[in-house]
């Protein structure tokens, strides 16, 4: 599945930016600022491949996905599908686009109409787009493709389990045989054993139909399992873009923190957590320079002082730059072998963190 990129990408975004204005005043709305939801995001996905987008809440991953489906309009930047600019298409062209690009949402009960049967839900895209042919037959076929049986067509969403509901959502997205499918947290509402069924289903569908996926998830394990390339987002920007196999050995300090905090697969070797101090900053007033600098342990290793950050990190924003190994990273000081981020993060947190805290970075923290 890890075929190297070949030919023109199916989907490409360049400089994609979305700012949601914050307004004050009821009659005359005055702009008071903006939420910088997505800032200057660029990537390309080859046909039949999967791009995983990982990030925490507020990192802009869902906003990015919704712009690609054209559910919201970007503030600036462009989206290309098969080389054609689809950023501003409207009317009949937009309807045609909807047949090619579909989305599966996180919450299977919230995205299915409770008053419609599974058959009506899965058949709706066929009806709306006036697809010729026997609709009932096609619905039965779609249900079979996602592992449900034709009798399920007459049941209502509440009669299904969570996993089955998500299958209905996937069948609906498949109805128009899309080329690109956006999967927005497709399994995070599901139990582990159910999640595995849905992940296998998604793998099979991609192999059978050559669908291109953009997978949004906060779970690095899920991302790693389904993706060919992985984009890590922090506060609206991509901070690292790498092959899925390389993401467990990251170059960006934030990716390193995410990887270290990802719960370890039971039974495997234990990992030491990099405990980031504080919460992600506000996207209304993002920090100057590198947005990660207030929480970055690597910056403290460079300065040698848990309370100080190199001038450059505070003032200049690093762009995504390609490293010799093919990955891209937006960091002035990408990780090097032997960087003790765990110790640096502990030192940053200080005694209040509850962890044992060395006064200086030179003295690493004892093993917990």
């Amino acid at each position, binding site marked *: *599945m890890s075929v190297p990129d070949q030919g023109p990408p199916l989907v490409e975004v360049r400089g994609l930016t979305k700012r949601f204005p914050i307004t004050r005043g009821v009659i005359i709305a005055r702009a008071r600022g903006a939420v910088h939801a997505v800032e200057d995001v660029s990537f390309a996905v080859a046909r039949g491949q999967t791009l995983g987008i990982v990030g*925490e809440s507020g990192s802009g991953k869902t906003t990015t996905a919704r712009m690609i489906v054209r559910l919201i309009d970007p503030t600036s930047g462009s989206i290309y599908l098969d080389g054609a600019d689809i950023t501003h298409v409207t009317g009949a062209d937009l309807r045609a686009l909807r047949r090619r690009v579909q989305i599966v949402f996180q919450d299977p009960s919230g995205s299915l109409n409770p008053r419609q049967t599974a058959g009506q839900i899965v058949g709706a895209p066929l009806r709306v787009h006036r697809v010729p042919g026997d609709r009932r037959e096609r619905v039965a076929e779609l249900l079979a493709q996602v592992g449900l049986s034709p009798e399920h067509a007459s049941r209502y969403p509440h009669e299904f389990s969570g996993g089955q509901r998500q299958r209905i959502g996937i069948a609906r997205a498949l109805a128009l045989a899309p080329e690109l499918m956006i999967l927005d947290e497709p399994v995070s509402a599901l139990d582990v*054993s159910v999640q595995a069924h849905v*992940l*296998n289903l998604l793998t099979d569908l991609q192999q059978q139909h050559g669908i291109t996926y953009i997978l949004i998830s906060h779970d690095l394990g899920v991302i790693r399992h389904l993706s060919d390339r992985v984009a890590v987002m922090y506060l609206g920007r991509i901070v690292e873009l790498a092959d899925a196999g390389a993401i467990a050995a990251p170059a960006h300090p934030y990716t390193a923190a995410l990887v270290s905090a990802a719960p370890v697969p*039971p039974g495997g070797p234990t990992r030491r957590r990099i405990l980031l101090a504080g919460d992600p900053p506000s996207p209304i007033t993002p920090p100057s320079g590198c947005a990660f600098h207030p929480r970055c342990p690597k910056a403290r290793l460079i300065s040698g002082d848990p309370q100080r950050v190199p001038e450059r990190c505070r003032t200049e924003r690093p762009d995504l730059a390609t490293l010799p190994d093919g990955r891209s990273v937006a960091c002035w000081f990408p990780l090097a072998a032997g960087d003790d981020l765990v110790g640096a993060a502990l030192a940053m947190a200080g005694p209040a963190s509850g962890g044992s805290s060395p006064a200086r970075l030179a003295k690493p923290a004892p093993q917990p």
Partner: protein
Amino acid sequence: MSAPLLEIEDLVVHFPTADGPVHAVDGLSMTVERGQTLGVVGESGSGKSVTFLAAMRLLDRAQPTISGRIALAGVDLLGLSHAEMRRVRGARIGMIFQDPLSALHPLLRVGDQIAETLRAHGKVGRRDAAAQAVAALRRVGIPNAEERARQYPHELSGGMRQRVMIAMALVLEPELLIADEPTTALDTTVEAQILDIIDDLRVRQGIGVVLVSHSLATVADVADTVVVMYAGRAVERGPCDAVFAHPLHPYTWGLLDSIPALDAERARLVPIPGAPPSQVDPPPGCRFAPRCAYRIDACTARLPELTERGGGHADACVLAVPGRTALRHRPGAGRTEAAA
């Protein structure tokens, strides 16, 4: 001090419904020791939350049929009066839930909510309570605690709210903390912070912790002992390392094989076939048998009890351990071999 901190013995919780009683918990036993973390894992409907809601006596209004014993330091909680139970909740057992926003009062400042807990148990005056609330916030690593205490829940981030919940649960210095999915609603890096805080408080204050989670990995990270629940019963119990390094029960195998790993090469996941059984009319014999790839006739004949297999590691399976573990990853290979 010989009695364990929390001891659950043969707990049964059945809820009456129009279709007949729902067997939410059906013969469950486990113990929590002081200064230790017990991890309880299971999927939705396995009875893990109901067990600890029963321990807190928070189910009374649903009028379930409860039998068995839930003893805190030797005293059976199920036999206490409502007034006595009120003195246990908060003061001796603290509890935190998955969603801190719905567990906090939206119109009260968080400092006042913590102070209210202290005042309700009649230990302190107004001013003292306020000061202790700030100190409690500081203990869970909230910066600018004085300022934060004057804020409302909506002004705080998810991680901060969960810290407030922990501060509130621990302000009366209970002996036991029950954390029911405390990090499920939180981001990965914040989850790490919260688990770290709970673990640090366990070490410093010597409290017993019950960590209820659907995530095996979360439990594997912090628990000393693990109980795996399925359909209202414990199917495996043992020291954390043993359970995850050498799992014994086919259901535990199924759970572990379902997790997509970050470091491993991408292989096809091996999900558990089928769905959990009906809780109104559970299957005969082992509850997991209908979905188990290693099933033999004896499985449906009787309900296996949790059986000690050495080193505190126990499981509830009809099959002999050596034959069974040799068959792992060869489902269906030895309906007869394993019976030996």
